[in-house]
């Protein structure tokens, strides 16, 4: 640590990087392990280009399927049919960008991956810091654009859930239906509790009193917003579980538990 931070001239000469005695490293370590595991799993699945569809379920990693999709999985046509790589790579930029620029995930990865800072009152290892004032991190200011895209993605995933209630011979409810339904509820909670959503629906106003409907919506989103990090985690798990379940069905490892 250069002598610019807690060791800077004039400050109390304490020497230690931190005097915290609690297990401050546990939270960033947990975040690091879980997020890394998700990144590895999601990267593998995004490039796999197989086992993402089994009638009537489409993996959320591949929805909407716009590339060279397996038969029956493209509900919105295949405008990128000639795309040589996995169809997931065409659309994953949107949820990925949404989560990478999310105010909660930013806190999480700045702490757990960049150690800036690893925990409160624990000195960071970097000698220089410019925050989000330069490229590439200044792009995090585009969060609202990814939020617009995330709303579209959530609508499409909702459509997938509706389709999962149907089969060629009529109605159907399987374990996969419930998995997709749970996932889409958590995705919506995460999307609607977003700070940019809170700003767009009413937070940007200077006169709540002149916009009673938007004010009311702002209070609802504000209530969800207090649990944004929880929804961020839950929806991260649910999207991975939904994909895993469909992959196991598609490659024949398990068979569907059908309720009716």
């Amino acid at each position, binding site marked *: 640590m250069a002598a610019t931070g807690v060791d800077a001239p004039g400050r*109390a000469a304490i020497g230690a990087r931190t005097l915290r005695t609690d297990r401050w490293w546990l939270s960033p370590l947990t975040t690091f392990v879980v997020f890394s595991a998700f990144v590895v799993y999601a990267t593998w699945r995004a490039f796999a280009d197989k086992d993402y569809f089994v009638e009537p379920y489409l993996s959320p990693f591949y929805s909407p399927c716009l590339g060279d999709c397996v038969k029956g999985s493209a509900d919105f046509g295949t405008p990128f049919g000639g795309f040589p790589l996995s169809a997931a790579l065409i659309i994953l930029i949107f949820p990925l960008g949404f989560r990478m620029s999310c105010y909660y995930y930013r806190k999480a990865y700045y702490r757990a991956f960049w150690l800036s800072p690893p925990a409160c009152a624990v000195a960071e290892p970097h000698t220089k810091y410019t925050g989000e004032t330069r490229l590439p991190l200044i792009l995090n200011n585009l969060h609202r654009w990814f939020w617009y895209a995330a709303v579209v993605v959530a609508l499409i995933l909702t459509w997938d859930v509706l389709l999962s209630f149907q089969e060629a011979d009529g109605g159907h409810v399987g374990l996969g239906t419930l998995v997709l339904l749970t996932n889409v509820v958590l995705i919506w909670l995460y999307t609607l509790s977003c700070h940019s959503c809170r700003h767009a629906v009413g937070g940007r106003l200077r006169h709540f009193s002149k916009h009673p409907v938007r004010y009311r919506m702002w209070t609802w989103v504000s209530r969800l917003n207090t649990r944004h990090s929880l929804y961020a985690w839950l929806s991260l798990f649910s999207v991975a579980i939904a994909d895993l379940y469909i992959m196991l069905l598609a490659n024949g490892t398990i068979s569907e538990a059908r309720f009716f």
Partner: protein
Amino acid sequence: MTYQLKMRVWRGDDSGGSLQDFAVEVSEGEVVLDAIHRLQATQAGDLAVRWNCKAGKCGSCSAEVNGKPRLMCMTRLSDFDPAETITVTPMRTFPVIRDLVTDVSFNYEKARELPGVELGPRDADGKRRMMQVDVERGQEFRKCIECFLCQNTCHVVRDHEENKPAFAGPRFFLRYAELDMHPLDTHDRRALAQDAAGIGMCNITKCCTEVCPENIKITDNAIIPMKERVADRKFDPLVWLGAKIGIRHKDDEGRTEM
């Protein structure tokens, strides 16, 4: 019930210092500031400590207890194991004056850089009016007691002395947000928040919120909304396009940019 509390207290000044060990008799229900006062009364008469209300409302006794930025008067000894040694140091972001007292004038300099409220003309009857719902919005921000624990814990200046000229810190982003949300204020502070106050330096790691003794949601309710307001102005092509073709956000009418 009384017991001997083991304490390590930083003693020194800007030329140097060290953690010194003490044993102080404390009683049930006491707080760290009580122990520091007893230490001062019985063993270290020249121990420098800043305090005032002993009730968590004046923001004077900010320090770091076991490495965590806390108000000493609001840190109960019952939260620690009686066998544990409690370490008390001054805040580590500001220049030390002596022992537990730091020079927090950085914060007052930053306060001076922030333009105050500029109200528009009065109503015809000579009064100014705000609706209750608009008044309530800023109340959370008014709870700030200026203990400067958020300024102390913010890694932007805590870990980088060189950032101090360019960064106002969470306490003042709270003030920027409060004024920018104020329906009667005629200043538009969004450009100032980005340029002079350096809100872009904040990477929203939320330590300010974690240490706030008033439980103000500094990050969620002030910094992020202020960042979004800056994004409205600087990073939103739709807003830019709207301004170009003459569609303005009516809510901003009557404001002039600082």
